């Protein structure tokens, strides 16, 4: 790409010039995770409480957003929603593209967050709810004081992955003309033809933010899991392996007896 000789100095220059566009990227990530959490909770609740019809609908919702590429979803919402609303005489042709981008990413991450919430809530031991009822709490108190805090700490690592995935997904918003860091990099590339330098600084920028988010969530997890023994904190994965070992050896023993 480009007719220029590669020059490392440009990497630093472009990195610096990309920084102002970072606020657009972070705006998309922040608002779509925020709205997505609300959507996720609303979508997870009918499944957790087994509400007949809504439960099916929310399953459908989740499988649509998990089963189709985010790029197609962006196009569908940006081009499709105004067309549909035109039928009921609502004019969205002047609505900024950013609105549709945030809408799509909110609904998209909402589907993933719903799955996380569902998994985490059902991972909390049933005995915890029983104990809460036994001390005289009502359903809401038991959920908000006992189940939710524990589910939250269980879900933090996966939630962190979703936020980082969402950050990287926002790089597709440039297809609708959004000037986030990727959109800005595209424009600068077309003007200067120094694509390599620009993409290196763009990749570095994404990496730094992802890394910072990762550290942030690690810290949050440690804080929220302070009530679990130190060994468990280091690696929950290790424990699940151990459990498998125990189960396997039990099984082998049984087999040997036969």
């Amino acid at each position, binding site marked *: 790409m480009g007719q220029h000789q590669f020059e490392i100095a440009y990497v630093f220059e472009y990195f610096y010039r990309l920084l102002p566009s970072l606020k657009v990227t972070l705006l998309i990530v922040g608002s779509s995770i925020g709205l997505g959490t609300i959507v996720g909770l609303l979508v997870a609740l009918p499944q957790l409480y087994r509400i007949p019809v809504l439960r099916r609908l929310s399953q459908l919702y989740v499988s649509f957003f998990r089963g189709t590429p985010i790029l197609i979803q962006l196009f569908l919402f940006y081009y499709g929603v105004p067309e549909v609303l035109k039928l009921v005489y609502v004019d969205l042709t002047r609505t900024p593209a950013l609105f549709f981008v945030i809408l799509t990413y909110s609904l998209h991450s909402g589907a993933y967050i719903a799955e996380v919430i569902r998994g985490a809530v059902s991972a909390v031991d049933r*005995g*915890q709810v029983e*104990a809460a009822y*036994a*001390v*005289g709490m009502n359903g809401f*108190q038991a959920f908000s004081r006992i189940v939710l805090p524990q589910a939250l700490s269980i879900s933090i690592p996966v939630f962190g992955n979703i936020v980082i995935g969402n950050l990287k997904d926002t790089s597709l918003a440039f297809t609708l003309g959004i000037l986030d860091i990727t959109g800005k990099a595209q424009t600068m590339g077309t003007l200067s033809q120094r694509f390599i330098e620009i993409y290196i600084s763009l990749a570095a920028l994404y990496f730094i933010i992802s890394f910072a988010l990762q550290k942030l969530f690690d810290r949050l997890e440690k804080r929220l899991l302070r009530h*679990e023994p130190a060994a468990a904190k280091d690696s929950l994965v290790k424990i699940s392996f151990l459990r498998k070992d125990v189960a396997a050896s039990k099984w082998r023993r049984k087999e040997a007896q036969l």
Partner: protein
Amino acid sequence: MIKLSQIKKSYGRQQVLHGIDLTVGKGDVVAILGPSGSGKTTLLRCINYLERPSDGEITIDGFTVHCKRPTKADIHRLRKQSAMVFQQYNLFRHKTALENVMEGLVVVHKQPKEQARLRSAELLEKVGLGDKLDAYPSQLSGGQQQRVGIARALALGPKVILFDEPTSSLDPELVGEVLSVIRRIAKEGITMIIVTHEMSFAQDVASHVVFMDHGTIVEQGEPNEIFRAPKEERTKQFLKRFAPESAYSI
């Protein structure tokens, strides 16, 4: 004080409780014995509606719930009358020992935090855990966790404490500390219903023994009657397994 009448419970087609009648007086310590699958734990869990009976009536201290069509408010009010100690302790994992005991006082009984803290510390002291106030359940042994569970139940000042096999998941050497705490609070005149497999403990602590099998009460009475001279064949058969123990104690 507590009156269960015609409590029935079935899971699908299988009926596990066939109309249980049981009366417990104030200050009584009732031990429910029986083989596994006899419905004793289910009966206990019906008393605070962790299991929903299919039919019957539960009365605690003058408040009656009709189990055919209970309202949410009925169930909630019934649960506030009792407290439970679980086989698996079920302490709130994200809270310290002190917070576990305080939780019900603050959230349900709306006590000011300071008052609840003092009361809870006092109760933990009483079960011998005065030095573990700030420990999380994961940092406590099974016996210690269960004693926190007992303190949590006591804190609520319930009309009755329900014990669901409180020592069944403990290491043998930790059983003693929990039983001695239960024995101590039994002497204070708190009404208790205990489902247990500890025969000598039941004989020693209970004022009334109930033997259940196949979802019915086979026999009930004073511990001496039941353990020394059971009338029903099924009770004799069940207690025979524990005979060597009683032979030594005589």
